[in-house]
């Protein structure tokens, strides 16, 4: 009965545990795949790795069933039905790779000769490994248009902008090892989702066992809130108002904040003129501060931080100047807890108490010794992610929350809010992979490393857009709704976009489900003259493709950097630097091919191999003998080998990593708690927004684009979503969605083990509504209901009445509700929340383009209940 005897009776040829990486979510935990006679019989965590430390979530161990899913694509397909639409059958015919690649190359060559920008490249965020290959192909082809579909648009535009600007990293997390008081706003880090998901579950549990107090601000009490010391339910999308009210209490009522930190590490002392701009030194052009000792305005670099005024009003050459902090103090006057209560529904007394607890626990001024190094100690952290930033007020919500950290100096010091690994001294063997945040001319922080080519700061110059997503105009944006929105054509006209997208190369993204309502996205998709989709399954989106290419899964593919950059999915805090790879455990099935190879092959056919090599050199920072040369046709193995050897020396190439799986070295306190060691300041006053707005308005206004200036003020405020302004009778609920611990985006719904568990979970596939409100509305647990937005779009599902949700909230888990036949296990499971999202100008943040992810809805009993 044991596996071993079972195996030996068949005669074992091969029995191996192979170190590689999970790809069921972007956490990319290190795994060991147990392969017996060409069959993977188990996936376990790799205890040698710092990423997951040998333990996996339910998704990771279930990867076997994704791999062996008989519904995986195995042959290239060509569409024979020229019509594209939600109800159109593509009428696939199987074709050979040669034919498929010939046709793709011919189409792409035509587009490239015409205008390479007409190609939109798109990738899923689930597979982090797709970033570099897709980025290099995009660069080599010559299109600026690389999109992450719903991935970035829903969760990243605010979170990564703010984390980058204020913490030089992709995301933020409490320093679990030392933090004593964490307040989460719509985040679940440490509770089964997010970056470094696997590792954070243990770190958060350790913190809980140690006694860290955790307050979770969330419309729903699940995951993080369920484990919290205190759940603070609030009205959906009002997180920023709560944070502002807490700032009000800290600054104006308690008068407690970390003045030395604000003086030395932020632009709080910078003098601001009546034009909202820095008062600059005439000779050097540097921002000035008021030197209390000298009684004069001087460039910030010439003054001891302790002598910088944070308050007051000064006459600087006839100009009335005030430190940014004084303006913040004044600005916060209106954000009283009573004001906050009206917006958030959180009682004013609670807001005061939370603020008091936060500053008390911050231990302002204290230090602690870690590994022999004396460091500032601020054991509190305010953490935000997808929930709080997924609104019109995306930027200010996150900004206001991070101000809590900045006011008490709880930023990248011991116990505080940490960016994920913003500073690295590099791999000791070669000195490679070293990076550190550094200042611009104004002293403000530039991230040491980043995920894309363009860092969140300094902010780019807005221009008449050359990208259909308009991000070169909306320079604070990352991902854009305007590739798919209803009004995209009108906007492109207004902005005189010199071309129109014509082709899409899609890797794994199911944008019909991941962005907004499917009718809007489908309309946009159908307009592409040519679409290629490289995918594991025939998703709803892939059914719009002209050619479909079957990809290899996570157990069949290769990636030299499954967890790099370190700012993405390596756990923050002390511990180890860790570089794992992903390697093939099983061969392709049928005609599956790795997308990385396909892109190299296409680049050869297009004659852009030299550009591709150059782009790989840039993206991987390949140096010296490891630089890819000319248009030499390297295999993907050779490229991975070059990156590994370049980083870790000639002995540690692909072969070494295939055998060992990971390379680790210890983190130093100066790396993890880098803030005191870097001469950088972060902006508590976003002066740069003033010129950004002026420039945008100068471009937009003559073209009839009216930008709301209130989104571009240097200090954060609460700006409502459309849902907060809805007065329509009967529309009583704020609908929102959240990540389910069992599912990653729309992908894992097809995994039968995860689907089975989700069917048994009370929340995964249902619509959560407050029990009291639900009963008042005549709902009974389990009833089938319609949820309808103001525009009449609606979705159906079973209601789950629960006490664990705000009375005005309506919560839906995951990106569920597949309708296509290509993923039959997933079909019809759960609720397709995104159908309730409108995709247009009015529902997109006018500063960072984040889509508004809440909707005011009406709930009605479905017909069958009436019977």
């Amino acid at each position: 009965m044991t596996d071993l005897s079972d195996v030996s009776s068949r005669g074992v040829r091969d029995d191996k545990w192979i170190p590689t990486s999970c790809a069921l979510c972007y956490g990319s935990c290190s795994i060991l795949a147990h392969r017996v006679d060409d069959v993977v019989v188990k996936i376990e965590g790799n205890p040698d790795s710092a990423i997951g430390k040998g333990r996996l979530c339910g998704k990771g161990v279930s990867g076997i069933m994704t791999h062996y899913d008989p519904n995986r694509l195995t042959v290239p397909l060509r569409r024979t039905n020229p019509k594209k639409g939600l109800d159109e059958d593509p009428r696939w015919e199987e074709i050979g790779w040669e034919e498929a690649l010939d046709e793709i190359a011919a189409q792409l060559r035509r587009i490239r000769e015409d205008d390479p920008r007409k190609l939109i490249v798109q990738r899923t965020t689930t597979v982090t490994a797709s970033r570099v290959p897709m980025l290099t192909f995009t660069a080599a082809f010559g299109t600026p248009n690389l999109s992450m579909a719903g991935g970035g648009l829903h969760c990243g535009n605010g979170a990564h902008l703010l984390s980058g600007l204020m913490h030089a990293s992709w995301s933020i997390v409490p320093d679990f090892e030392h933090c004593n008081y964490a307040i989460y706003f719509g985040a679940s880090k440490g509770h089964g989702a997010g970056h470094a998901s696997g590792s954070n579950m243990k770190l958060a549990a350790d913190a809980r066992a140690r006694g860290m107090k955790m307050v979770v601000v969330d419309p729903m009490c699940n995951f993080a809130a369920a484990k919290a010391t205190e759940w603070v339910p609030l009205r959906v999308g009002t997180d920023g108002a709560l944070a502002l009210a807490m700032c009000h209490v800290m600054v104006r009522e308690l008068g407690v904040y970390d003045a030395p930190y604000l003086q030395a590490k932020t632009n709080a002392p910078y003098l601001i003129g009546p034009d909202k701009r820095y008062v600059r030194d005439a000779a050097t052009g540097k921002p000035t501060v008021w030197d209390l000792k000298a009684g004069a305005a001087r460039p910030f670099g010439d003054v001891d931080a302790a002598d910088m005024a944070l308050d007051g009003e000064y006459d600087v050459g006839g100009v009335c100047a005030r430190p940014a902090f004084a303006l913040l103090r004044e600005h916060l006057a209106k954000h009283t807890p009573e004001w906050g209560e009206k917006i958030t529904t959180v009682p004013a007394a609670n807001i005061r108490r939370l603020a008091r607890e936060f500053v008390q626990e911050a231990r302002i001024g204290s230090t602690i010794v870690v590994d022999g190094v004396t460091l500032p100690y601020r054991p509190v952290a305010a953490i935000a992610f997808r929930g709080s930033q997924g609104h019109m007020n995306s930027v200010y919500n996150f900004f206001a929350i991070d101000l809590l950290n900045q006011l008490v100096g709880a930023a990248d010091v011991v116990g505080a809010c940490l960016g994920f690994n913003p500073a690295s001294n590099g791999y000791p063997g070669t000195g490679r992979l070293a990076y550190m945040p550094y200042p611009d001319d104004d002293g403000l922080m530039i991230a040491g490393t980043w995920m894309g080519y363009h860092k969140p700061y300094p902010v780019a110059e807005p221009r008449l857009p050359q990208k259909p997503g308009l991000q070169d105009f909306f320079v604070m944006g990352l991902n854009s709704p305007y590739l798919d929105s209803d009004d995209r054509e009108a906007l492109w006209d207004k902005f005189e976009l010199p071309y129109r997208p014509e082709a899409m190369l899609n890797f794994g993204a199911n944008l019909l489900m991941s962005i907004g309502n499917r009718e809007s996205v489908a309309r946009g998709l159908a307009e592409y003259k040519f679409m290629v989709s490289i995918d594991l399954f025939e998703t709803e989106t892939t059914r719009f493709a002209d050619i479909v290419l079957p990809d290899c899964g996570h157990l069949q593919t290769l990636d030299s950097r499954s967890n790099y950059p370190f700012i993405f999915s390596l756990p923050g805090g002390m511990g180890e630097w860790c570089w794992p790879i992903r390697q093939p455990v099983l061969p392709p099935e049928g005609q599956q091919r790795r997308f990385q190879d396909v892109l190299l092959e296409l680049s050869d056919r297009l004659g852009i191999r030299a550009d591709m090599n150059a782009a790989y050199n840039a993206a991987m920072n390949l140096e010296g003998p490891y630089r890819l040369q000319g248009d030499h046709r390297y295999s993907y193995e050779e490229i991975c080998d070059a990156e590994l050897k370049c980083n870790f020396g000639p002995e540690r190439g692909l072969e070494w990593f295939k055998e060992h799986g990971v390379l680790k070295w210890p983190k130093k306190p100066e790396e993890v708690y880098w803030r005191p060691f870097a001469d950088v300041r972060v902006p508590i006053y976003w002066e740069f927004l003033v010129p950004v707005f002026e420039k945008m308005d100068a471009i937009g206004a003559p073209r009839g684009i009216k930008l709301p200036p209130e989104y571009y003020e240097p200090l954060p405020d609460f700006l409502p979503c459309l849902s907060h302004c809805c007065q329509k009778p009967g529309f009583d609920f704020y609908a929102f969605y959240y990540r389910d611990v069992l599912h990653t985006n729309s992908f894992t719904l097809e995994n039968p083990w995860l689907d089975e568990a989700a069917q048994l979970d009370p929340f995964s596939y249902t619509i959560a509504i407050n029990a009291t409100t639900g009963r008042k509305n005549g709902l009974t647990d389990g009833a089938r209901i319609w949820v309808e937005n103001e525009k009449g779009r609606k979705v159906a599902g079973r209601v789950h009445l629960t006490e664990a949700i705000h009375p005005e909230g309506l919560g839906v888990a995951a990106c569920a509700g597949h309708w296509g036949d290509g993923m039959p296990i997933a079909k019809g499971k759960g609720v397709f929340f995104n159908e309730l999202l409108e995709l247009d100008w009015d529902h997109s943040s006018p500063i960072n383009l984040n889509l508004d992810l809440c909707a005011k809805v009406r709930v009605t009993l479905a017909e069958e209940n009436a019977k």
Partner: protein
Amino acid sequence: MRWGMVIDLKRCIACYGCQLSCKAENGTPPGVFFARLLKHEEGQFPTVRQLFLPVLCNHCEEPPCVEVCPTGASFKTEDGIVDIDPDMCVGCRSCMMACPYGNRYFNDKPQHYFPDGPTPYEERRTARHQTDVVMKCNFCRDRLAVGKEPACVANCPAVARYFGDLDDPNSEVSRLIKDRGGFPLHPELGTKPSVYYLPA
């Protein structure tokens, strides 16, 4: 020697890792979960608590299931594990009726997850389970035999599960139960479970 498990409800985050790593280890058919996660809500808005309870066979010291088994297929090992010899099981399901915790499953027919047929993984791991017999958690005896912890323990990402000798007062599990007030489920039934919980 008496193997036992301690599950720390303060650390558990309801990630389903135990339920699914058990499935991956044992290749259990659809509908069969040797390890399961239960969710329960207590209180009223806004003072509500969500309670997560991972459950599995309690490997009771006084197992009612073993007592009722007419063939001796259900048995208890010397180190306290309750297991079933499928060759002796006649599928009468008396034990399922007797188990007050609902931790036994009947494997009525060969099953697999995709309608298309068993995957190569299932051919390896699921097909070896005999049909027409009762099946249950056996504390991963095969893993114990090669010095590994049970799958659900080794895998739990929140490190909420501990395994060891309840007879040894100095073992980690014994100390956790003592220090943190560990409790079994339904002690009033007198089954003396070997699975303990630490308060949330």
